[in-house]
């Protein structure tokens, strides 16, 4: 199917060329290039985690959850502050319990009264939730910068130094993050495919009314979905918190995850993962290799193109494939 779709092919080809160009023109040593690539993939894993939260909720309840970033911040703050009092594992479990309560409250107080409203109103409601959670999280847990210690060595490790000149520096923490993300995705897909609750979730995602008519309780399903999104937010929050410290800016990560969801397709968890990796790599590559070129060419006051690169990439992609990579094709009827 993809073979006949020439705009997609063209875009993919352009991306591929862009990807290998720095290497082909000898603009960077191969070791450094692979470092950038790995860095991009690692960032991509974290974007994927946040994007998965979006996709899960959108799929099951048709709500575009702008508050996912705020949930990540809230969860990270909870873990960071609780871990000061108790062992990390207990703190994580407790934080998950808090996220479940939060999910239940959101379903009760926000979603249920707004059922059958149009998409924009729901989007706005989640924006309201975002503001509330940002304020609430910082009132409850404090607004300083906190650290989450995972007990993994921070110093980078040199690998393959006999293959490339200078070797490659990698962070053990990043590998741990990738591993956890992979585990989470596997666990979720088993949950969705094999358990009866998972099947119910997929039924609701397919068709609300049909699911309801065969006796699936919508409200409970929503609580479950938001709880799972809370779990995903928790994992993402721990990863980001361990990497960058827990602070308000974590909440902004969600904005980076938005192009990921539209690239992957709102309704697809697989799309979120692949989209996250594409965006992560593309963004890092653009910042490192395209940025200096642009600064020189247009006489800019500094780079920072990673702020918008992901969006423009996703936008270009949407122009040729409006439903995203794995989104469901939509047929309009009058």
């Amino acid at each position, binding site marked *: 199917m993809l073979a006949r779709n020439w705009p997609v092919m063209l875009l993919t080809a352009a991306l591929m060329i862009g990807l290998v160009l720095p290497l082909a023109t000898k603009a960077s040593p191969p070791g450094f290039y692979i470092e950038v690539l790995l860095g991009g993939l690692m960032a991509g894993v974290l974007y994927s985690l946040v994007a998965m939260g979006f996709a899960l909720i959108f799929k099951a309840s048709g709500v*575009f959850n702008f508050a996912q970033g705020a949930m990540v911040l809230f969860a990270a703050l909870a873990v960071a502050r609780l871990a000061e009092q108790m062992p990390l594992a207990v703190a994580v479990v407790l934080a998950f319990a808090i996220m479940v309560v939060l999910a239940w409250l959101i379903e009760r*107080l*926000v979603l249920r*009264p*707004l059922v059958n*409203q149009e*998409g*924009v*109103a729901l*989007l*706005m*409601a989640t*924006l*309201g*939730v*975002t*503001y*509330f*959670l*940002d*304020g*609430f999280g*910082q*009132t409850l847990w404090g*607004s300083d910068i906190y650290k989450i210690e995972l007990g993994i060595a921070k110093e980078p490790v040199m690998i393959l130094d006999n293959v490339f000149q200078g070797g490659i520096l990698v962070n053990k923490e990043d590998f741990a993050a990738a591993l956890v993300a992979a585990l989470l995705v596997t666990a979720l897909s088993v949950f969705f495919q094999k358990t009866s609750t998972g099947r119910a979730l997929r039924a609701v995602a397919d068709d609300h009314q049909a699911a309801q008519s065969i006796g699936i309780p919508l409200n409970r399903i929503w609580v479950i979905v938001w709880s799972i999104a809370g779990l995903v937010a928790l994992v993402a929050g721990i990863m980001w918190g361990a990497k960058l410290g827990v602070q308000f800016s974590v909440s902004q990560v969600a*904005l980076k995850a*938005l*192009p990921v*969801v*539209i690239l992957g397709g*709102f309704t697809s968890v697989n799309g979120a993962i692949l989209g996250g990796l594409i965006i992560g790599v593309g963004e890092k590559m653009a910042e490192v290799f395209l940025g200096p070129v642009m600064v020189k060419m*247009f*006489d*800019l*006051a*500094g*780079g*920072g*193109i990673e*702020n*918008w690169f992901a*969006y*423009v990439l*996703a*936008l270009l992609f*949407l*122009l040729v494939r*409006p*439903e*995203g990579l794995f989104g469901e094709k939509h047929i*309009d*009827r*009058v």
Partner: protein
Amino acid sequence: MLYRENGQFKSSYAADLQMLPIAQDRWFVLVLVLFAFLAVPFLASDYLFLSILIPFLILTIAAIGLNLLVGYCGQISIGHAAFMAVGAYAAYNLVLRLPQLNFLIVLLLAGFIAAGVGMLFGIPSLRIKGLYLAVATLAAQFFIDWLFARVKWFTNHSTSGSVSTAPVELFGWIVDTPVEKYVFLLALLIVFTVLAKNLVRGHIGREWMAMRDMDVAAEVIGIRPVYAKLTAFAISAFYCGVAGALWGFVHLGSWEPLAFNLTLSLNLLFMIIIGGMGSLLGCYFGAAFIVILPILLDQAPLWLGVGISTATASHLAFMIFGALIVFFLIVEPHGLARLWAIGKEKLRLWPFPH
């Protein structure tokens, strides 16, 4: 008893088509406008002008612009502050490079430039819709934010990236004091409101609404989607461009690169949601609400005499703001304009509601 249309007969087409068909409405609006022009300048304090009335007037223009796109044409945009930025920087550069131009012409040109940019970023709306489009408009927000922060030409190579402007001058009249600014903005707002009202009840507005209600059906009955959507983007961005230029020149005077950031875009969206989508009156209510609420939330701890730290206060303000948004959406999803309409309906039957 006082508010009803019995006995008001329309005997000409003009009377049938007028903007406010009920005489009491016409009188009310007339009195309101006269009050705003003649009484408010003497009654209000400088603080009231500078921190409430002037932002309110400018943001109302921007909210009308956004409402034309979101409320009437049904295309969601979370990036409209970007078009305000385009208007502001366009006006800055026009004044800087062509100082002989009249400010009104600068304002119009800034609006047209913003309209051009708006059309450019409106092109994706032909392919993607709904929430996908909402995210796509964020591309405009982040790209334009970056553009004005990084490309030195736009800020005239200022080292900090911030720009400052001289007071607006119109035919020798220097709009400098709060009262003058207020009168100038009020006049502009009235012009733009009347213009918008006539746009939305004319054929172009009907095309937008048909697009909003069901785009495929609209296409079938012969409405060109390209034309309808792009005009909506263009006119909406025009309004926001003008509002942005006014925000920069009249309200701020000098501004930082990120003065028109995502928060402002979201606030514009809140305005039209709280005020009422697809209602011009709602833009006024929404803008007033969003301008006044943060000030109230800031002041509330002082009035209550509670001694809390500023950080806690700002977090609490965030919480209350978010909770209020959700509350409003639940209680009245059609906005304050709907409440107003209900009130008017009730008033027509009062005091005998049966």
